[in-house]
């Protein structure tokens, strides 16, 4: 009685398009996940227009803008790392992946200080300062913490993902003929970027 290795066939037939299709479908779930929160945002912004204006003044536009620039640049570096590996330039590809991670780290540090300052000012869910304000402001900051927090969580996951990819690239498992995993990680990273592209104006620019 012979032993059959499971899915020998699966490994022979690599289907890059299928993998990318799967990744896109997964991105849709992420998109809708945030979409749900954008729905909440939209409804409360409609209900508490004035209070959202007032609350948004507390946020620092330049910090947000800086983070936007950082994330957009990191989106560029990750896409360049794919081009580099397709051109069979392993060194440059890894360099770009590391740049992406450094930029993401910068984003998180920036976010950390931003949150820290807010918390020092006594603005966090359940704080006395916040409960003293109007309902709309409580909800604005509730949304602010939940949405940027969940986004930051995605940034962290993205960094971990790219770290694994960098390892694969160094080991040669990702190479100029097989780079679909790097593409998938890239797609994820761009989605994180797109979500921030919307978070930025909705929270920082409505003063």
């Amino acid at each position, binding site marked *: 009685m012979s032993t059959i290795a499971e899915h020998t066939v699966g490994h022979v037939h690599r289907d890059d*398009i299928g993998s990318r299709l799967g990744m896109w479908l997964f991105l849709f779930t992420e998109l*809708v996940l945030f979409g749900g929160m954008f729905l909440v945002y939209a409804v409360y912004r409609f209900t508490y227009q004035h209070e959202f204006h007032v609350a948004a003044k507390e946020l620092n536009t330049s910090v947000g803008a800086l983070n936007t620039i950082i994330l957009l640049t990191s989106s560029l570096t990750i896409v360049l790392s794919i081009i580099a590996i397709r051109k069979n330039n392993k060194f440059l590809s890894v360099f770009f992946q590391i740049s992406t991670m450094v930029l993401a780290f910068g984003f998180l540090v920036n976010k950390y200080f931003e949150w820290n300052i807010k918390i020092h000012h006594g603005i966090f869910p359940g704080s006395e300062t916040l409960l003293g304000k109007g309902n709309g402001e409580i909800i604005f900051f509730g949304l602010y913490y939940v949405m940027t927090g969940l986004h930051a969580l995605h940034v962290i996951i993205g960094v971990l993902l790219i770290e694994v990819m960098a390892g694969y690239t160094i080991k040669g498992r990702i190479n100029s003929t097989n780079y679909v995993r790097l593409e998938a990680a890239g797609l994820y990273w761009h989605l994180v970027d797109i979500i921030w592209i919307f978070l930025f104006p909705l929270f920082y620019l409505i003063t």
Partner: protein
Amino acid sequence: MNGEHLESTVEHKPTYGIYILVWLVLMMLTGVTVAVAGINFGNITVATALTIAIIKSYLVLTFFMHLKTETATFKIFVGVALLFLLISIALLFSDYSFL
């Protein structure tokens, strides 16, 4: 299956230039959206900010995420997902904006 795969990747020679260009445009748009937010357009402010955000994400989708060079299936898929979100928003606001 494999024919489709080769088609979509080999046909387009990878170049750095286009991405850097797109990145520059994205930077510019970020500058514009911050600058515009400073001026008070009243109600149009939100609309402007969102329009710019939509343009930016369109650029990211098309170029960075290579939607431009993918097959029609991918484009239809994205369309379906966005349609679902739009329907949800529109129907939800049939309750809220007419209250």
